[in-house]
């Protein structure tokens, strides 16, 4: 029982290890609402090109849960519907926050999510998820 409590506690700590998730776009891009961010990451709004962090990064599951209310497997099923009907390609996966910032800084249509602590002047925050 004690071990289980410890496991739960450490899982909770791991989930809260980051300060918050910042959804970032190019400084030249327009502001977005949380509904728009959800629509972009579920392939319903094609006005932006979404970027993903690796599935191994805990931020990814946390981001989708908070931004879209869906688990990673639900999101994957959603994108497989779009992909295999030739309607859209899933978000491009980049290795880390630094490469997301670089891609967003260089593309007015790119959108990404990173640990809020990693935000700098090269990108604009449109939404913060705690």
């Amino acid at each position: 029982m004690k071990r289980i409590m410890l496991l739960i506690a450490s899982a909770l700590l791991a989930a809260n290890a980051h300060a918050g998730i910042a959804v970032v776009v190019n400084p030249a891009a327009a502001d977005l609402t949380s509904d728009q961010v959800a629509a972009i990451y579920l392939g319903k709004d094609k006005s932006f090109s979404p970027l993903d962090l690796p599935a191994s990064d805990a931020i990814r599951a946390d981001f989708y849960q908070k931004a879209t209310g869906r688990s990673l497997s639900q999101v994957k099923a959603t994108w497989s519907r779009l992909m295999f009907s030739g309607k859209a390609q899933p978000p491009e996966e980049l290795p880390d926050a630094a490469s997301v910032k670089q891609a967003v800084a260089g593309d007015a249509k790119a959108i990404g999510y990173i640990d809020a602590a990693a935000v700098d002047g090269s990108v604009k925050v449109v939404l913060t998820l705690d």
Partner: protein
Amino acid sequence: MNHCVKAVLAASALIHTATPAFAAVELGEHAMLSAFGTTGLVVTDNDDVEYVRDGQPSGATTDPEFKVDTNLGVQLNVNATDWLSGTVQLLTQQRSEMNLDTEVEWAFLAVEPLDGLRLRAGRTALPMFMISDTRNVGYANNWVRPPDEVYGMALLHRLDGIDLSYRWSLGAGSLTLTALAGESEMNTSGIEAEAKDVRGLTARWEGQVLTLRAGHVESEVELEPFGIPGGATDDYSFSNVGVIFDRDNLVAQAEYVQRRAEDYGQFADADGWYVMGGYRIGDVLPYAIYSRTEPEEKSPAGQMSGEQSTIAAGLRWDAFSAVAIKFQLDYVDTHGTPGISFATPPLAQPLSVLDKAPVLDDVVVASVAIDFVF
């Protein structure tokens, strides 16, 4: 064992070792190769009739059968520019032939000259239903297979032609209108007939939790292969409305379809519908489906499909990243007709090649499927 089956089995074994996100293979900067597949096993409690989907010629009895649901799709996407792309999808599954067979399911060029406007030319899925374009992608759906009482009613599946879509924001979602034109092929009970002058309109509104859909497709089907000489055609139409609800842990989906023929309605006219509901508990989604199809006229000879209803209960388990394992039990009642999901021997003195023997008992069907995408 057929080599295609081996490929499917090998592919499904492969995904257990490789589990990154969408492990689609990028080929250079502009091309991407991806795949989906299902390895499924079906068994019933009845040796007199074979349980099939989509009018397959042979299926499951008390001997477990994997050809009913097993398939493998490979798709290549090429994005030449922001506004021009190409898609080719090969799909291996049991069709009208007795063995697994690979065909080009999709092959189209898409042009998007303006945001929201898209023109496609080539081969696409004919949008008879709400999920026509992903009906074969097990992973994209919660059930093991689409209810045959509805999805088995379409005798046309593919469009060789063009479609034009326009999508814009409406309310808290987006509305897509699509117009299509081209030709197709009808394939039923071993009869192949050309379907000319296929035209259709569909409307789809997608919000955060709700998707609404309506569609109508018409075509001129040649009648010679059905034993009516003289180059006559009949106007065959298909109308559909559907709704998907997905909020938090609750999912629900329903569709209603009408199949009509102008001159030979007594053989073709039928309605079908289903309701499906499920509740997500973590990675597990238990669900139930009730589906039913009824011909407009009770039991004239030579009907394309009989009466049938199915109560199904199942479970989708997202066991690994990009892998779902599903179990489903179906209780199928054909109300004394040949039904729609059974390959039965033709009657001894058939009035028409479509005259099938009735299914005499209710049939219990058990299925297990492993779906994957990569």
